[in-house]
């Protein structure tokens, strides 16, 4: 018996098109929400607190454990100084990616990191941008202002392009170039764990969903607010 080659019946083509596009639309809408690029290996991480309530603004990053190839994430990260506070409070970037500081206030700030391995300081005048600072290795950088002591911000430098901050639903999504075994790390400066981190090793499959639940409560995030409500203080 000669087997017939598989042929599309022309009459069925419109049905196939409708079906395929339906599939594509539902798939793209899923990836648009979950991952940044199409046709990729999507993984979603959800972070919950001890009471199983989703946590926003938690940093999640994925470190390859099976020699997976990583692209470089070179997107510039911008840290603003606005209303005498660091905005955002937490920034993340991959090492060697450009970091830019933007002073949106009408006064000078004196930004510093006191950490012995990543010490830096510079004054940034009203309305100016400073892009001189660059970080070539993973680091957890606590930043302050030597003029306004209540200002506090963090910059986490990671060695992977797979990093994100959780959204209001506690979700962080990644589109991986290669699947396989990864270490899923959740970080927040107020997390009550060693090095403010939680680790999870996971063989990541297509469209995988990982839930990380904190085992302890979080410390209170310090308010970046002066105790004084007066703009014309002579303190510096």
């Amino acid at each position, binding site marked *: 018996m000669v087997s017939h080659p598989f042929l599309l019946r022309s009459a069925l083509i419109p049905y196939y098109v409708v079906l395929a596009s339906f599939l594509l639309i539902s798939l793209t809408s899923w990836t648009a929400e979950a991952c940044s690029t199409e046709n990729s290996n999507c993984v979603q991480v959800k972070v919950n607190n001890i009471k199983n309530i989703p946590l926003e603004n938690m940093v999640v990053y994925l470190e390859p454990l099976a020699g997976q190839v990583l692209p470089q994430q070179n997107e510039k990260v911008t840290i603003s100084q606005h209303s005498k506070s660091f905005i955002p409070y937490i920034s993340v970037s991959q090492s060697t990616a450009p970091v830019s500081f933007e002073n949106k206030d009408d006064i*000078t700030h004196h930004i*510093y990191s*006191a*950490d*012995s391995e990543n*010490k830096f*300081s*510079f*004054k940034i*005048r009203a309305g100016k941008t400073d892009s001189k600072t660059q970080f070539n290795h993973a680091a957890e950088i*606590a930043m*302050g202002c*030597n003029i306004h*002591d*209540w200002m*506090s911000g963090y910059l986490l430098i990671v060695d992977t392009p797979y990093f994100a901050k959780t959204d209001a639903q506690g979700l962080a999504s990644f589109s991986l170039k290669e699947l396989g075994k990864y270490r899923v790390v959740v970080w927040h400066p107020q997390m009550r764990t060693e090095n403010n981190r939680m680790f999870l090793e996971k063989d990541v499959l297509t469209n995988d969903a990982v839930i990380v639940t904190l085992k302890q409560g979080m410390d209170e995030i*310090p*308010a970046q*607010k002066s*105790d*004084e*409500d*007066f*703009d*014309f*203080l*002579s*303190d*510096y």
Partner: protein
Amino acid sequence: MIETGIRLCQFLVLMTFVTLHNTQAAEYTVHGIADLRVSYIDSVDKGYLNSGQGKLGLGDGLHFSLAQLGADISVSWENGFSAHGIVNAYPKASGGGESTVLGITEAYLKYRSLPTSSGYRLQTKIGIFYPEISLENNAYAWASKDTLDSSTVNTWIGEEIRVLGSELKVTRLGRLNNDKYDLSVSATAFMNNDPAGALLSWHGWTISNRQTLWTEKRPFPWFPARADGQALAGQADKSDPFLELDHRVGYHVRGEWKLRGKGELSAGYYDNRATPYKVIDGQYGWRTRFYHLGARWRFSQNLSLTAQYLSGDTLMQSQNKVDVVNNDYASGFVALHYNWQAISANKKHKSTVRVEDFSVTDNDNTWGDNNNEQGQALTLNHSYRLSKPWFLSAEFTLIDSHRPARYYTAQPVDLIEKQWQLAARYFF
């Protein structure tokens, strides 16, 4: 005195050049205040600024004034050094004010290090400055932030306490130690504050916004012991509070605990270590020592408190070491501030109520110089922020005092003084 001043100026200029040479980007800033006022006073003829026995700056009647014109000029460099010059002018008020004066109130060089990885920061100051005592006068040019006139405690600090010295302050930042509080301790060694205590003894506690300019001499009321042949005949007509008479170094130490977002508690001790029997050109050394306590606390978003207490003694002797003036003194206030945020947006309205209690106890037997005093004061202030730099304020002050020395100039020993003020203050 002048020689010391010249040497200080030379030093500051030299330091400025040294720091300039070492760095590139210097930032120049000028900030300040202009304070326009209308005051109506119900008191005695003359306020204490005009050598009167009134406890307010001006005497009876209606006064229009530019109550303060102050500028805070500074240069700061990338390396943590900064140089500061604070200039204040007090133009003559209408209706019997003192003559117009203009001069320097502070001039110092400051260095603030970056915090170490363990959160310690060093700050040093050298030059002419206020020891850190007042919790009210932290606006530009030492203006009072929440009221038009300072409390009795800080009116005195502004009048007689200023040093030529060097302060070292160490702060431990909680942020870098996972603590919610910051701690700081400071120590100051100083010269040029030997006659401090004379004006407090001779006019008692007072209320105004006036600061003594560096090298300025200030008058005080007449009393019989100043007459020829009496114990204080040798005292000059005006007191010159910022003199060095005996080349002995005085000191001030202070500690502060600050809980982020809540407030702070502080305590300090001042001792000018002046030789009480030393006299040069009618200016005596006054051994003045006091401790001071301070608190600032935020109870809620809208309600906060400022309180200070100061207590100490002062001693002045004749050249053969007999006590001429030996006084104890104390003064404290509690001020509550309310931000009317709930009612109006942008924190535009703020009210302050301040109550004070003050006393001077005369422990010597000098005839014709009774320094005893007891009193209380109440200040009500409401301020409205018209725009970013403009503040409109209405302030009422009531002082009820018992002061036997008023008898010497035929004025009531028990006196109630009232002051109503309207002001437009511009900060830049």
